[in-house]
C-alpha cells in the first residue's frame, strides 16, 4: 500500500475520529512514520480550524443601520407594490362592473322595445 492512497482517508480519520476500515491500511499507518506524521498534521489543522469558530470579526460601524434601512426600504417598496396592485384590481373591477351594467341596461332597453313592438 502506498502513502498517497491513504491521504484522503487520513484527513477523514482526523476530522471525524473514524477508524481506517481497511486492515491493510491500518497496518500501513502503524508502521509508516510519514502517514503518522500526516495524520497528526491533519489533526492539528482541524483543531486550528475549529478554533476559528470562536473568533468574531467586528464589521465597520454602520452595517446594522444599513441592514435595517435596506429592509425598511424593501418593505416600503413591497407596500407600494401592493397598493398599486390593489388600485389596478379596483380599476379593472370598476371597468368590468361598468361594462356589465351597460350590457344589462342595453338588454333591458332592447327587451322593452320588443315588448312594445309586440303589443
Amino acid at each position, binding site marked *: 500500500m502506498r502513502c498517497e492512497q491513504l*491521504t*484522503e482517508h487520513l*484527513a477523514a480519520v482526523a*476530522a471525524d475520529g473514524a477508524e481506517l476500515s481497511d486492515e491493510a491500511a491500518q497496518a500501513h499507518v502503524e508502521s509508516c*512514520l*510519514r502517514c503518522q*506524521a*500526516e495524520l497528526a*498534521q*491533519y489533526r*492539528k*489543522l*482541524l483543531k*486550528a*480550524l*475549529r*478554533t*476559528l*469558530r470562536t*473568533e*468574531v*470579526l*467586528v*464589521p*465597520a460601524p454602520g*452595517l*446594522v443601520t*444599513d*441592514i*435595517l434601512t*435596506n*429592509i425598511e426600504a*424593501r418593505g416600503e417598496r413591497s407596500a407600494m407594490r401592493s397598493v398599486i396592485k390593489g388600485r389596478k384590481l379596483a380599476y379593472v373591477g370598476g371597468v368590468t362592473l361598468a361594462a356589465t351594467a351597460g350590457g344589462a341596461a342595453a338588454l333591458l332597453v332592447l327587451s322593452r322595445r320588443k315588448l312594445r313592438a309586440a303589443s
Partner: protein
Amino acid sequence: MPDELAGLVDAARGGDQSAFEALVRATTADTYTLAFRLTGNEEDARDVVQETYLRAYKGIGKFRGDAQFSTWLYRITANCAANQLGRRKRHRHDDLADDAPIEDLSPDVDPSAQAEASNLRERLTVALDDLPPTLRSVVVLRDVYDLPHEAIAAELGISESAAKVRLHRARKQLRERLFRLPGEEVDARAV
C-alpha cells in the same frame, strides 16, 4: 440557542418588527465573520450580510425552528456568498481552478515578515485567504462552522460528492501550506 435569542426568533416569526431588528443586532458580527471568511474581502462581505438579512426577513415566517436559528442564518449566508462569488467570477473571469497551485502574490516579500506570522492560527488565516473561493467555502462551512455535507452542497449548488472532493482538496492544500512532511515537495509559490 440561548433563550433570549429563541424568544426573539419566536416574536419575529409572529411578525414583530422590533424583535427582528434585535435579532439583526445580536447576530450581525457573527454573520459578517462568516461572510468575510467566505468572500475574503470586506466589500463583498457587507453586501452578503445585507442580502442575508433581507432574505431572512422575508423567510423568517417559514423558519420552522427545528434547526438552530444560527445554522439557518449560516445557510442563507453561504448561499448569498456563493451567488456573490459567482457574480464576481462572471465579471472578472480570474477565478482559480480547484487544482491551481496557490500563488504567492508578493514573492519578494521580506522573509522576516513571513516569519512573523509564525502563529499557526495566523498562518491558517492567511492560508485560508489564499485558497480558491470554491475550496475555501467548503472547508470553512464544514470544518469551522460544522455544517453537514448535505447542507453545504445544497447552499453552494453542487453535488454532495463534489463538496466532499473540494473539502479534501482544501484540507490537503492547507496541510501542505502549513506543514511539511519529510521528503514532501512544496511548491515554492505556495509557501
